[in-house]
């Protein structure tokens, strides 16, 4: 049987070699990503690939896009047999890519990076670096921001976004009074709940401690976190959140916000382009400080996460690495202009066309005095998903702050 399989494989290999020669000198690089048609990032990918192929007429990029959720299954399964991986693949930085690096399936980019170091600050490579080596090309970076619908705030008597916690609570009470729902949050996608919970925790305990907790070097068992969770739940039970949110997906919640159903929507800055182009008067701000001794207003959750990586099993790893950097740079370029994120690469093009909200967020990032990567990206798969399971229970009010910290502290020891 083994011999038969071996023979079969040999025949297939021989055949594919023959066909490779028959096609001439044109090299083909394969790529998997999640930019499906009419995904916000699709035009950026199309433009970047067209530009790359124009610059390298001897290289053809053969790319396939997959729906986000199923892509995660697909890429993880493909790791079981690295020979089935494409040359270049989209991945999330942090622990998601880290697992693949641990398995030895990712090509090290240190060599290729040298050529691009001038345009791509080393700090932006940090989330895709493991053991001092670089394994991923960042595309865009994003932070969690609070979008505010100024028209609705005006109806409640506010002409600017609240900057302190007390102001925020007063504002929410005024909104509820005026029959306006202050917040929308998609409960059926737990990462959306973390977009609310993490900033609240951040503004309670500060970025240093939160960073250590996500890294596993500090414990969740901190009374201050319990207080932050209780605050969040109080906001929910006081009716600040749309009750329908518990069974809605993020796209619906976002659409509701854009349609003027909620005064605030706290989510990633990749939404800037969409919110910016929507009808209405919108602003971005950050969640206010809860404990001024530990946190400041300008601390943020976020960092570069969308990444391209090269498979170690690639037939042309150097070429693929080169292509990953060039594509990454262009995807970043077009994505920035379209408002789907902030540039991880230093722009070398005209940025006067950048959308107003994106520019505002860029200023926030520039002024940030502390940044913590999204919890579910920072933690490795098992703890990250255990964390998400408990966050989901927080939003459903199934556990309180004390239960949250003791459970997590024990489960993620």
């Amino acid at each position, binding site marked *: 049987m083994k011999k038969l399989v071996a023979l079969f494989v040999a025949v297939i290999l021989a055949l594919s070699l023959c066909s490779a020669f028959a096609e001439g000198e044109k090299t083909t690089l394969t790529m998997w990503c999640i930019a499906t048609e009419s995904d916000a990032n699709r035009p950026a990918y199309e433009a970047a690939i067209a530009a790359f192929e124009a610059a390298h007429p001897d290289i053809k990029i053969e790319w396939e896009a997959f729906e986000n959720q199923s892509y995660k299954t697909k890429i993880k399964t493909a790791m079981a047999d690295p020979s089935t991986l494409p040359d270049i693949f989209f991945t999330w930085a942090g622990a998601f890519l880290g697992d693949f690096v641990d398995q030895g399936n990712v090509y090290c980019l240190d060599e290729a990076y040298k050529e691009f170091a001038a345009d791509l600050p080393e700090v932006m490579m940090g989330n895709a670096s493991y053991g001092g080596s670089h394994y991923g090309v960042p595309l865009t970076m994003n932070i969690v921001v609070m979008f505010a619908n100024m028209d609705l705030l005006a109806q409640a008597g506010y002409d600017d976004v609240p900057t302190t916690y007390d102001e925020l609570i007063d504002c929410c009470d005024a909104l509820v009074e005026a029959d306006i729902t202050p917040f929308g949050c998609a409960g059926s996608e737990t990462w959306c709940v973390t977009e609310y919970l993490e900033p609240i925790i951040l503004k309670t305990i500060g970025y240093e401690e939160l960073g250590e907790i996500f890294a596993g070097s500090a414990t969740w068992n901190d009374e201050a976190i319990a207080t932050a969770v209780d605050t969040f739940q109080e906001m929910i039970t006081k009716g600040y959140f749309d*009750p329908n949110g*518990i069974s809605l997906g993020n796209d619906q919640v976002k659409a509701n916000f854009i349609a003027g159903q909620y005064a605030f929507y706290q989510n990633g800055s990749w939404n800037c382009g969409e919110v910016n182009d929507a009808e209405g008067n919108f602003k971005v701000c950050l969640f206010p400080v809860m404990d001024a001794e530990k946190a400041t207003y300008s601390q943020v959750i976020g960092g570069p996460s969308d990444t391209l990586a090269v498979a170690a099993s690639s037939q042309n790893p150097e070429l693929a690495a080169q292509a990953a950097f060039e594509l990454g740079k262009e995807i970043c370029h077009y994505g920035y202009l379209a408002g789907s994120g902030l540039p991880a690469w230093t722009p070398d093009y005209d940025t006067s066309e950048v959308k107003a909200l994106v520019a505002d967020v860029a200023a926030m990032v520039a002024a940030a005095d502390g940044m913590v990567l999204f919890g579910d990206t920072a933690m490795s798969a098992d703890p990250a998903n255990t964390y998400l399971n408990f966050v989901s229970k927080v939003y459903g009010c199934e556990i309180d702050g004390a239960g949250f910290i003791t459970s997590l502290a024990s489960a993620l020891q």
Partner: protein
Amino acid sequence: MKRTLSYKLNIGLFLLPALILFLVILIAPIAMSAYYSFYDFNSIAARDMDYIGLSNYKTLFSRFLVNAENGMQYENDKFMGDALTNSLLLAALSVFIQLPLALLIALKLSKGIPGERVYLSVFFMPVLISTVIIGRLWMNIYDPGEAGILNAGLRAIGLDKRLFPWITARLTSSKLEFTGQWTGFKETALLAAFIPILWQYVGYHMLLMYAGILGVPSELLEAAELDGCSERQVNRYIIVPYIKPILKVCVIFAVTGSLKSFDLIYTLMKDTTKAELPSTLMYKLLFLHNRYGLGSAIAVILIALCFLFALLISMAFRTRGEKVA
């Protein structure tokens, strides 16, 4: 003839295609899963595996775990018990609601009422629609916003004002208010998942049973009528016992189908925790938590359960059969 029938080479050749398919694509992978279920590892390429004996199974069946360092008890988010209860509930709903309904329709239609073919065609139709589509369609039906047709219907007849507060007060344990988020609460999500399953498969069982009923020899039915049996008696004492083999297939299909069901819940709800089933939990452990040993253990448990149920159902049908005879 007997010698020809027991000629070994022929037996082998007849079994060969099925055996190859079976061994290569089912048994070998499952054997691997069974092997993996005794290990703890988070690399899909099965490297760095730690042998941990039955620990994975123990983890799946402990509602609470104890932290080794501080001795504190905490809730185990990988506990399989709730998912198992859910899938058994689903199986019970299928067997005790879906199948009787299908049998009832089949009995009515097989009596030759006008338009029976039209009814048959309509009832069978949802079977042919892809589960992905049905999941999405029902997601829209349950939509808690203005457009969701279920809540719009309840609003139109004013039922929401009485039903929703009742659900909030009596049914849900959460502090949140129920405003029609059928897939957002544990207490309603499983039922919300069952209804589309019922909607899709009732026609399948109905057609199987209908075909079986038409196979009942007409002499039997005529004899019963001459004896003055009522319709109910004919149904109970002649038709149902006669189509028992088909009923058995239906029950096995409904039960194992419920234990294994995945696609519908996966497409109906983005977050399956509200109606967690063993298969969705397995998917999460394998592909989100990267806990391949734990995921494989669920696979093994599921197979064992399905096998056990198939066996029990077969036995139940056998003893019943003897009584009737």
